[in-house]
């Protein structure tokens, strides 16, 4: 697109003029910052957290930072998330970033390559010493615990757990579905250390009439309204009591990345990532299905019955997503490679919600025939499994390697997308392109 210098100049001036005439308004428009009455510094809150997230650190002297001031660091950190490497940034406010498939080749996803899905503005305080978690609602004994107390009072366990965003694969929906256009990489399987959610709930005493959990984090709403939660989801109490769910305080043996929910988060593997509340402050138990933000309406829901692409579905015909479907990802080779030899080792991972993967097959002839792969057992329940196989191409030309996983209940990945209005649960098979010279 040719650049229109006149327009540029005018548009740029408009922004300068706005800052000149009303820096506080300019701040509110640009960053959602709200100035203190004396116009020096700005209130603690969403705007500060937003700017902190942008510059990659809390801003200790934020009170003396003039309203209308653009931190120099913004220029340098644009397009980067501290502690993350190689991620594709879909959105920077709130931060949403996925990992290209070929960077997910590790058996255990490094913290630097774990995707980020934020709904609000991360808290600016993530101090592990002063952090408190409250368990309340329909329990015999409400509790408020520090992370230190959690780790002393309950067994500490480390498990490798798969977390996948409910909207992973949304980018391929036709007609397009609303929301972040995730392709393949909103999935990860890091090692998480923490205490079992079930142990903590048992200690609090789950009353017999509890049906659902409700999770609350410390992140704040994008609008800056302190009375609004960006997201608060929950799970049926039966799922909550599964021993694989963790209240986690470490990721891959070190501190949790701030964007992955430091210093404390839930990990409820096998279900949409949104069940795994980050920056966890409170778990309350309820006698009805939780109705927090993004539990109701059409969020994290799919039509009860299959619908034709583009169908408008009434709200009452949607159901809450529970377990994620069987899926696999080819993590080596990277798509688009050119080969000089005929042999190609193929590697990747497969996972299946609450179940295990029974087999993964590959095809190099557009699905006409399928080749069995070597598939590992999961290291623990809800860890993804890895498949490997060296395939041989018969002649030069263009090929696609397709992967198709089948779970222990016999369900296999489809070729086509089961379209739904909000673009969830796309487990259609993964394809990588290979050209053989």
């Amino acid at each position, binding site marked *: *697109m040719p*650049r*229109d*210098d006149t*327009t*540029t100049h005018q*548009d*740029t001036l408009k*922004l*300068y003029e706005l*800052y*000149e005439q009303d*820096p506080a308004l300019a701040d*509110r*428009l*640009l960053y*959602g910052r709200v100035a203190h009455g004396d116009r020096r510094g700005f209130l603690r809150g969403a705007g500060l957290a937003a700017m902190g997230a942008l510059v990659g650190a809390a801003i200790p002297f934020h009170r003396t930072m*003039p309203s*209308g*001031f*653009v931190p*120099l660091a*913004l*220029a*340098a950190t*644009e397009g980067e998330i501290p502690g993350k490497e190689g991620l594709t*940034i*879909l*959105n*920077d*406010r*709130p931060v*949403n970033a996925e990992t290209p498939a070929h960077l997910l080749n590790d058996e255990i996803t490094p913290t630097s390559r774990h995707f980020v899905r934020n709904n609000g503005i991360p808290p600016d305080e993530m101090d592990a010493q002063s952090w408190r978690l409250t368990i309340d609602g329909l329990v015999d004994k409400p509790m408020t615990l520090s992370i230190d107390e959690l780790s002393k009072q309950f067994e500490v366990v480390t498990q490798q757990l798969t977390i996948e965003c409910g909207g992973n694969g949304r980018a391929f929906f036709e*007609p*397009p579905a*609303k929301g*972040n*256009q995730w392709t393949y990489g909103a999935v990860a399987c890091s090692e998480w250390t923490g205490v079992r959610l079930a142990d903590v709930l048992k200690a609090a005493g789950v009353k017999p009439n509890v049906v659902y959990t409700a999770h609350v984090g410390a992140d704040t*709403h*994008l*609008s*800056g*309204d302190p009375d*609004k939660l960006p997201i608060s989801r929950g799970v049926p109490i039966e799922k909550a009591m599964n021993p694989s769910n963790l209240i986690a305080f470490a990721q891959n043996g070190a501190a949790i990345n701030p964007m992955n929910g430091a210093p404390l988060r839930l990990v409820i593997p096998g279900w949409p990532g949104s069940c795994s509340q980050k920056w966890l402050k409170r778990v309350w138990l309820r006698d009805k299905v939780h109705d927090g*933000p993004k539990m109701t309406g059409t969020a994290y829901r799919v039509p009860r019955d299959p619908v034709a692409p583009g169908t408008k579905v009434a709200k009452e015909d949607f159901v809450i997503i529970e377990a994620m479907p069987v899926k696999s990802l080819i993590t080596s080779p990277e798509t688009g490679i050119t080969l000089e030899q005929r042999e190609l080792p193929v590697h990747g991972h497969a996972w299946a919600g609450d179940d295990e993967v029974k087999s993964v097959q590959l095809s190099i002839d557009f699905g006409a025939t399928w080749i069995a792969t070597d598939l590992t057992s999961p290291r623990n329940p809800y860890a993804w499994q890895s498949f490997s196989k060296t395939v041989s191409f018969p002649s030069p030309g263009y090929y696609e390697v397709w992967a198709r996983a089948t779970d222990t209940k016999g369900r296999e990945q489809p070729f086509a997308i089961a379209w739904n209005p909000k673009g969830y649960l796309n487990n259609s098979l993964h394809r990588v392109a290979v050209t053989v010279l």
Partner: protein
Amino acid sequence: MRIVLLVSLLVAIAPASALSDEDEWDGLAPGEGREEVYYACQACHSLAIVKQQGLSRESWDESLIWMVEEQGMPELVPEERELVLDYLSKLYGPDRKAQSQ
């Protein structure tokens, strides 16, 4: 004095940050209504999420209703709202016109 300083600071960092043509509008495609869309959306979230979408006018309309009713967005005046809907459904409609330019 502070304002003068501020303006020169903005000028100084302009080439490296966000103030060139494409960047000032965060890459929104040119068209009538761009400025209205920019200021209506940018107050709460970046334009990156807008630019990813390919939605029908009806779906954009629902999004605006949802933003106002549930997400704390100030209501747009009717003329502005029409401009915003026209722009979004024309450039960020199901054919993803802006993305293919």
